[in-house]
């Protein structure tokens, strides 16, 4: 009903236009696109928002139960409280919470839900308990809010309000419950009338189920609670009407009534809407009234109330949904489908209105487009041209024929001038005139005068080029241009036609579209190119000038003077007499373009052969449209069809800035500002992480043992408007090089990650392909297995190195031992061979000598042969002698069995020195057996040195010292003779004193040889051989072979010396 006291403060910005029931889109995936059908009381044309309805029942996974309340938390989830308990909805799936973990409370029927501004979700159970859900954990209300809570409400600062049976109104802020009702108003404890109530026992008594004597004021069950902008807390009761709190005192508001108050809605100007079992009421500041309540709602049971962001009121009644705006009440005629009753309402952060009923939830979704078609009164779904005049009347002509107009909810048909039997190709107008171009009837002008239409028609008879007029344009100077089907162009000015054909410069006699630039230049689009008429001069643009195709469909100038050209091969533009094609065009803009219009926000709305597209004008002129500069619209946006119609003008921007599209199905109109408002970005968060199938707590630092190999991270981006279109991109720092391709999968799986630190990022985009930059991230680390850690590896490397070193040493030692064994064997063998050789040789020579002797004896004394043979015998004697000596040397170690000191001691005797020489042999240390090869060489060196001393030194004393130490063996031959000339010392006269020979022998056995001598001061010859080389090994094989002992063991050996004097 029209209400005179319509509240002018209700904004007219968004309201309802006319809506009709539309059924039959069950084909559409998921969304049953149903329009909210409402009988129009009266509706204004200015409002264009339109709601698409989607439903979720048990067929879509709704767990069931009558919905009592709906809320949404800051993370984007929708929470639904039903008789079954608490359900969480993410746009795609429902999740029923059965247990209020970590408490032990089983989530029973939920009575109320509210999400406050501090990130808490408050859940009121039918058991009058309060639960708070925060960060994944439930918590029971405590202290004042432990029991007896009957309703849940919202304060004006978006914090929560409770009504407690015992304590009255309670607010919650920053962890504290604060009772608002003063103590005097609270329920008295039994037997006392003092204000010092033992609130706990009072509460307990409720819990046990005892019938209380009294509640807190207002001494009735509070069923609804809210706060208006003036700070008053309102309490609606079950049977005592409305109360409010003022300074802690509970006061009645208005007269008492007995109908149950189900819901309260705080409204502007501190007004209050009151939903009762018997209709909607209003508190106007002073009293409860029915003023302003539409008649339809006067006696309906009102179950829930919300006010949306456009300041409309939604009313949930037992017979369906009612929408209230400044224009009036609009009833939902979809009731038969919903089963009627709506029990809960909620508007989410994206502006969708959610309605809960006995068997499921619905979402009423604002769409960008409103589409009118046959159900709205249009004669046909497919229309051709569209034009909106200055009065706001939309003129359109169906493809089949006729001319119609639509204004508000009315659709009218033009029958004048035989238009109902003709096909109208184009419509244009100026002022109060509407010009139409017809298929057969030429050109008709319609004028509206005093409520009626007058028509005048021009045909060929009047000078029109052809009776088939395809394009019509009324230019600013009043000239009416008519482009005909094949007869060229006609310009009507001052009642006279001027015709132009190809002979005048038109590229074709068929004109498909006409446009006028702000500077007055006329543009004609033909199938053969673009023609420009300016200052009477014609110019033609063809494909050679850059047009993607010469077959043009439409031309539209924009506010800056750029001419936009829709050709059959895509869009192009002309600026400064030059044709350009925007770079980087997507496929949609390379289709045939049928209509282009510019909105006031810098966007071009384009209808192509198959798409409805909005593109940012500046990017088309510049570097090409990016992802955010282009958007396609489809069925989910309110369109019924997306194919453009080829007409002179099938896309039109009206004076309000709305863009009208004539499409293959329906006449659609969009409010660009509505489409421009970007929807809230999808809220992405990580849902769960599982490692090898076991879930892992996402809170806290995550460390995964490397033995587990499969990590699955589930995430969700919440956008309740269009959950199926949410897409994700993710990246794992430390593994992925770049973001993944957009996809709808909600789980990322990684296997066989090597140890290290990682960070997982995921971002989401909502249905508008907006990649919100806020991302959800999860850092985690993979612990290395013990054998992967750096220290284990280092230890392994060290161990390997040590092993290698040990192996090497072992080999070296073994090789040295083998070498020395071999050397000894070789020495032994050499000795043996030498012995055998010498033996045989010697014996042979001896034998020969004997026989020669005998032979010589038989020769006569004077035989000339005798001296020669005697000489031979002497030589042989020498050979024998030398051979004997050599053999004796060879045999010394193996066969003589004498130790070094004895053999050295004998040397003076053997040398047969006659001089008086004192010879001493001194032994120091415990004599150790020398290795065979060493023994020989030492003996030879010693013998040579002694021989030198005895023969050449002319000394009086000659000493030999044999020193046995654990680490070395030393032979020292000392004489006090004449010394060796320094020069000879250095050069070492070969053969004579054999110094170099001795040195060579010493080096061969690895010993050090030294000669010290000064003329007249004596000579000292020293040979020092390291113990490990000199001595036969005393120790069994063991660790000692690995290391040289430092310092060597020094045996304290008793000194022993033998003195031998030779005569």
């Amino acid at each position: 009903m029209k209400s005179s006291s319509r509240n002018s403060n209700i904004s007219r910005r968004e309201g309802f236009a006319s809506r009709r029931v539309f059924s039959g889109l069950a084909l559409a995936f998921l969304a049953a696109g149903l329009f909210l059908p409402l009988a129009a009381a009266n509706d204004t044309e200015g409002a264009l928002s339109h709601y698409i309805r989607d439903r979720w029942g048990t067929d879509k996974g709704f767990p069931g139960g009558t919905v009592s309340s709906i809320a949404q938390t800051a993370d984007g989830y929708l929470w639904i409280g039903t008789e079954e308990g608490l359900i969480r909805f993410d746009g795609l799936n429902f999740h029923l919470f059965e247990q209020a973990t970590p408490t032990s409370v089983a989530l029973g029927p939920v009575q109320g839900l509210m999400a406050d501004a501090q990130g808490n979700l408050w859940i009121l159970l039918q058991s009058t308990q309060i639960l708070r859900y925060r960060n994944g954990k439930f918590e029971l209300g405590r202290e004042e809010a432990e029991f007896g809570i009957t309703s849940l409400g919202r304060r004006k600062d978006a914090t929560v309000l409770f009504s407690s049976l015992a304590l009255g109104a309670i607010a919650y802020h920053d962890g504290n419950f604060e009772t608002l009702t003063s103590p005097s108003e609270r329920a008295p404890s039994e037997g006392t009338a003092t204000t010092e109530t033992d609130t706990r026992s009072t509460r307990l008594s409720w819990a046990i189920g005892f019938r209380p004597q009294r509640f807190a004021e207002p001494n009735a069950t509070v069923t609804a609670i809210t706060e208006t902008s003036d700070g008053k807390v309102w309490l609606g009761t079950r049977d005592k009407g409305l109360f409010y709190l003022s300074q802690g005192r509970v006061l009645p508001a208005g007269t008492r009534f007995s109908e149950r108050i189900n819901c309260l809605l705080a409204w502007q100007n501190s007004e209050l809407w009151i939903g009762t079992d018997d209709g909607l009421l209003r508190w106007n500041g002073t009293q409860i009234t029915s003023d302003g309540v539409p008649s339809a709602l006067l006696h309906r049971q009102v179950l829930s109330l919300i006010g949306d962001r456009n300041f409309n009121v939604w009313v949930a009644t037992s017979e369906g949904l009612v929408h209230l705006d400044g224009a009036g009440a609009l009833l939902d005629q979809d009731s038969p489908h919903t089963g009627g009753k709506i029990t809960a309402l909620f508007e989410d952060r994206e502006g969708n209105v959610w309605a809960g009923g006995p068997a499921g939830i619905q979402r009423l979704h604002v769409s960008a487009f409103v589409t009118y078609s046959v159900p709205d009164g249009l004669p046909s779904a497919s229309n051709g041209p569209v034009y909106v005049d200055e009065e706001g009347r939309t003129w359109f002509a169906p493809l089949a024929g006729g001319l119609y107009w639509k204004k508000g909810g009315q659709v009218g048909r033009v029958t004048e001038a035989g238009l109902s039997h003709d096909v109208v190709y184009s419509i244009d107008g100026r002022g109060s005139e509407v010009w139409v171009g017809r298929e057969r009837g030429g050109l008709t002008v319609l004028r509206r005068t005093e409520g009626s239409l007058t028509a005048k028609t021009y045909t060929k008879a009047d000078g029109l080029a052809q009776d088939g007029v395809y394009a019509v344009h009324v230019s600013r100077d009043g000239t009416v241009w008519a482009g005909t089907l094949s007869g060229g162009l006609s310009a009507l000015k001052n009642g006279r036609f001027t015709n132009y054909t190809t002979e005048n410069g038109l590229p074709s006699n068929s004109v498909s579209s006409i446009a006028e630039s702000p500077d007055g230049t006329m543009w004609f689009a033909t199938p053969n190119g673009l023609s420009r008429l300016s200052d009477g001069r014609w110019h033609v643009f063809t494909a050679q000038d850059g047009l993607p195709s010469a077959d043009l469909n439409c031309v539209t100038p924009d506010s800056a003077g750029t001419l936009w050209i829709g050709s059959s091969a895509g869009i192009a533009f002309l600026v400064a007499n030059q044709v350009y094609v925007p770079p980087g065009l997507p496929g949609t803009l390379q289709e045939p373009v049928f209509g282009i219009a510019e909105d006031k926000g810098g966007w071009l709305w384009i209808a192509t052969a198959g798409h409805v597209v909005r593109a940012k004008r500046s990017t088309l002129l510049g570097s090409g449209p990016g992802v955010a500069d282009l958007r396609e619209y489809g069925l989910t946006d309110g369109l019924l069809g997306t194919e453009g119609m080829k007409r002179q003008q099938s896309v039109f921007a009206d004076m309000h800035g709305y863009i009208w599209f004539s499409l293959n199905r329906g006449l659609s109109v969009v409010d660009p500002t509505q489409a421009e408002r970007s929807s809230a970005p999808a809220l992405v968060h990580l849902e769960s992480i599982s490692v090898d199938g076991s879930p892992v707590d996402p809170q806290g630092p995550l460390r995964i043992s490397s033995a587990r190999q499969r990590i699955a991270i589930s995430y969700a981006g919440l956008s309740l408007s269009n959950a199926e279109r949410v897409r994700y991109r993710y990246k794992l720092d430390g593994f992925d090089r770049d973001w993944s391709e957009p996809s709808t999968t909600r789980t990322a799986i990684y296997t066989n990650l090597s140890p290290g630190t990682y960070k997982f990022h995921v971002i989401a985009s909502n249905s508008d392909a907006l990649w919100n930059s806020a991302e959800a991230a999860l850092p985690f680390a993979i612990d290395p297995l013990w054998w992967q850690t750096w220290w284990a590896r280092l230890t392994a490397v060290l161990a390997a190195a040590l092993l290698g070193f040990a192996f090497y040493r072992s080999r070296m030692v073994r090789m040295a031992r083998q070498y020395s064994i071999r050397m000894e064997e070789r020495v032994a063998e050499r000795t043996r061979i030498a012995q055998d050789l010498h033996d045989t040789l010697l014996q042979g020579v001896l034998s020969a000598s004997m026989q020669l002797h005998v032979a010589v004896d038989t020769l006569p004394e004077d035989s000339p042969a005798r001296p020669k043979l005697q000489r031979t015998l002497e030589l042989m004697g020498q050979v024998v002698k030398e051979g004997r000596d050599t053999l004796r040397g060879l045999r010394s170690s193996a066969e003589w069995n004498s130790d070094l000191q004895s053999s050295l001691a004998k040397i003076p005797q053997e040398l047969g020195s006659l001089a008086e020489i004192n010879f001493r042999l001194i032994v120091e240390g415990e004599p150790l057996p020398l290795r065979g090869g060493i023994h020989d060489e030492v003996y030879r060196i010693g013998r040579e040195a002694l021989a030198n001393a005895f023969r050449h030194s002319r000394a009086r004393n000659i000493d030999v010292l044999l020193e046995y130490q654990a680490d070395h063996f030393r032979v020292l031959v000392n004489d006090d003779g004449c010394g060796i000339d320094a020069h000879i010392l250095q050069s070492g006269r070969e053969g004579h004193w054999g110094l170099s020979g001795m040195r060579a022998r010493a080096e061969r056995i690895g010993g050090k040889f030294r000669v010290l001598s000064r003329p007249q001061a004596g000579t000292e010859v020293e040979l020092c051989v390291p113990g490990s080389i000199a001595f036969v090994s005393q120790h069994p094989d063991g660790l000692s072979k690995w290391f040289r002992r430092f310092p060597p063991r020094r045996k304290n050996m008793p000194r022993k010396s033998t003195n031998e004097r030779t005569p």
Partner: protein
Amino acid sequence: MTDNPRIRILSVDDHPLLREGLATIINSQPNMELVGQAANAHEALQQFRRLHPDITLMDLRMPGKSGIEAMIDIRSEFPDARIIVLTTFDGDLDVQRALEAGARAYLLKSMPPRELVEVIRQVHAGKEPNPQEIAANLRSNSQA
């Protein structure tokens, strides 16, 4: 005692060349005769049993049993055996031991044959070669 017109000699040496040399020397003497040769101690004993020579020339160094051991073996069976030891080397300890073990004399293989023959004659004549002479021999030979 009447001179046996031929002294019967057995030579024991492992070197065939040397045996040949000895044979030449002995056979060049009119009153000597080489009745047998042996290459080792075992053969020496066998030959001695068979031949009963007057003099045995025994090489000191032989493979297997040494000359001294062979001499001891022979003298244990034939205490009257007269054995002269032969050696390449002078100053050999074994020479002392040989003389102590019962050798009548020693000979250097490098001695001129007439000295070799002379010592054989003297031993056969029953004379003990003078130890001093031996020593002098030793010395003179070592300075040769």
